């Protein structure tokens, strides 16, 4: 028996940067998105038309805009289930403002401000009282929508000004809608915020270990409060877009959207327990959801089957990296 320990090689990285990029979540998602695009164009002769693709973007941009802020919130280890409720109350408040003769800029401000107030309310309950965010926002989900139902009952607000219709129905250039451009712009803003600023690093730190982050001088409560406010504002923006697209407000507006938003975030590779994930992944996941539902819609696949396919896709994409890793381990041996 010899005492000399064998020399151990400790690499800087486990994989080469190229290999890491290739196996990363966004590239995997991109591959899925491209395959879905190709399958769709073969499955339906109507898919590859500029107007069809433009119409398809309307199916997911509003949800995707909320998903951007939701991604940050989930990375920090929190969640907001009340986003669809915020859309309902923001839209209702815009309707109320309309009754008082508000013009288009005022309507937009009212919508976003209502979203901000709701987000701040969620944030205050979570950070000041230390309540779990899932409990708080399940409560406010019913609270916000309930207020809309009290104000509106079975009535609807309609008669929004012509110029207000631009946000949800207008086109910036040819088939490129205002909604879509806004989504891409916001995606860029959120990319910079999460991946290029100190604030973004704080979000990851908090998601991985809030106590360690606190002791490292990160103001955990303040960062989380800001994230709830951001999610509220994004829900307010989505409310402006959706109200403009529908041209009316009812308390049942955007019912069930919270799950679709969270599905996008999880499909985008954000760890539901917090600590990891990227904006690129979330954006590509939004496209995947949009392409799958629109492609299946063109084939007149019933909605029930569509839900099954989305569910299978979610599980499949989540399981794929684990399966690939198992395969790599086996190949190494």
């Amino acid at each position, binding site marked *: 028996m010899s005492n000399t320990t064998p020399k151990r090689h400790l690499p800087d990285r486990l994989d080469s940067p190229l290999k890491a990029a290739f196996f990363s979540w966004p590239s995997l998602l991109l591959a899925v998105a491209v395959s879905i695009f190709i399958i769709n164009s*073969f499955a*339906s*002769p*109507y*898919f590859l*038309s500029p*107007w*069809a693709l433009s*119409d*398809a973007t*309307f*199916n997911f941009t509003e949800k995707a805009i909320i998903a951007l802020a939701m991604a940050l919130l989930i990375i920090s280890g929190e969640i907001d289930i009340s986003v669809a409720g915020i859309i309902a109350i923001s839209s209702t408040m815009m309707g109320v403002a309309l009754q008082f003769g508000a013009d288009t800029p005022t309507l937009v401000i009212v919508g976003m401000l209502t979203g901000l107030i709701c987000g701040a309310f969620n944030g205050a309950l979570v950070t000041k009282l230390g309540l779990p965010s899932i409990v708080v926002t399940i409560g406010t989900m019913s609270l916000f929508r309930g207020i809309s*139902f009290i104000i509106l*009952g*079975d009535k*609807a607000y*309609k008669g929004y000004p012509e110029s207000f*219709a631009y946000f*949800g*129905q207008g086109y910036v250039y040819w088939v490129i809608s205002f909604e879509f451009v806004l989504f891409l712009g916001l995606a860029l803003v959120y990319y910079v915020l999460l991946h290029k600023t100190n604030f973004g690093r704080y979000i990851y730190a908090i998601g991985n270990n809030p106590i360690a982050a606190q002791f490292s001088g990160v103001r955990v409560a303040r960062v989380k409060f800001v994230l709830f406010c951001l999610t509220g504002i994004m829900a307010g923006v989505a409310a402006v877009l*959706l109200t403009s*697209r*529908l*041209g*009316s407000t*009812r*308390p*049942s*507006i*955007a*019912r*069930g*959207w919270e799950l679709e938003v969270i599905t996008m975030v999880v499909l985008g590779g954000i760890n539901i327990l917090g600590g990891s994930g990227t904006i690129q992944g979330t954006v590509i996941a939004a496209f995947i959801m949009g392409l799958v*539902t*629109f492609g299946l*819609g*063109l084939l*007149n696949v*019933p*909605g*029930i089957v*569509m*839900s099954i396919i989305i569910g299978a896709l979610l599980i499949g994409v989540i399981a794929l990296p684990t399966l690939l890793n198992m395969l790599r381990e086996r190949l190494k041996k």
Partner: protein
Amino acid sequence: MNILKKLAAATALTALVLGAAPAFAETKIALVVKALGNGFFDAAAKGAEDAAKELGDVTVIYTGPTSATAEGQIEIINALIAQQVNAIAISANDPDALVPVLKKAMSRGITVISWDSGVAAEGRQMHLNPSDTDLIGSTIFKLAADYLPDGGEVAILSASSTAANQNSWIDAGKAALPTMFPKLTLVATVYGDDDSVKSTDEAKGLIASYPNLKAIIAPTTVGVVAAAQVVTDMGLIGKINVTGLALPSEFKQFIDNGSSKAVALWNPIDLGYSAVYIAHALANGTEAKPGVTLSIGHVGEITLDDTNSAAMAAPFTFDASNIEEFSKIY
């Protein structure tokens, strides 16, 4: 042969096949319903297929969202616009929210009609009512009054609070209540959102809150089944009579066990059938304007009123004498 070449060949072949398909003039009519998995709409789709067979050159696309939302229907309409269908016949989840997308459809040359649950006038060319609102409103209360000679408390279990058709029937019924059925007292109107779990909870709530309740009126096929099931389960058969609008096949057991004396409904098969006839006529050049008379095959004909709406027929009552026969049809 490399992959690129194979791909190019496959693309060319696909284009050839697809290009050859629409050679003969065929009318594609989409029957868009509030939500799939609802017996009423499945029956309407059966009628639509019957009409398509009679007309010959018609293809019917039967579609709808999983849950009854306006947003879900908008996604479907976007897909139908992309498919360049000739006509869309829709039973709408919201009369206003669908207007912008249906206007877009019309601007791209698609005929749009609404049936069953209507769309605001600017979002469609005509609307086909299954029956007359006033007649349905008074019928649902009459069904309760017929079996309550001494009168009593009744309550309504409706679909969602935003459902246009249910609300208009209830309003019409309330208007008729003081003159036609003075002995009935309407104590509450609750909403089960056409969801069987929520409808069951609301029905239980009504029974708990109003101990003297004599009848539950549910003008929705989902709510009426939930209410009758609750009455059966709680052993209240004979004390509370469940009535309203029900599909005979789904509801037969409750007429049989006595939890309900009678229910009513128009014929959804005829409704889908008529919608396809009308959509076909309008897509092939007939103009929809007040006063125009359109044929709806074996159902008869309709005349458009000032708002470009028309009523198909009066609702039909099912009781112990005829439920057996109709439960086999729909």
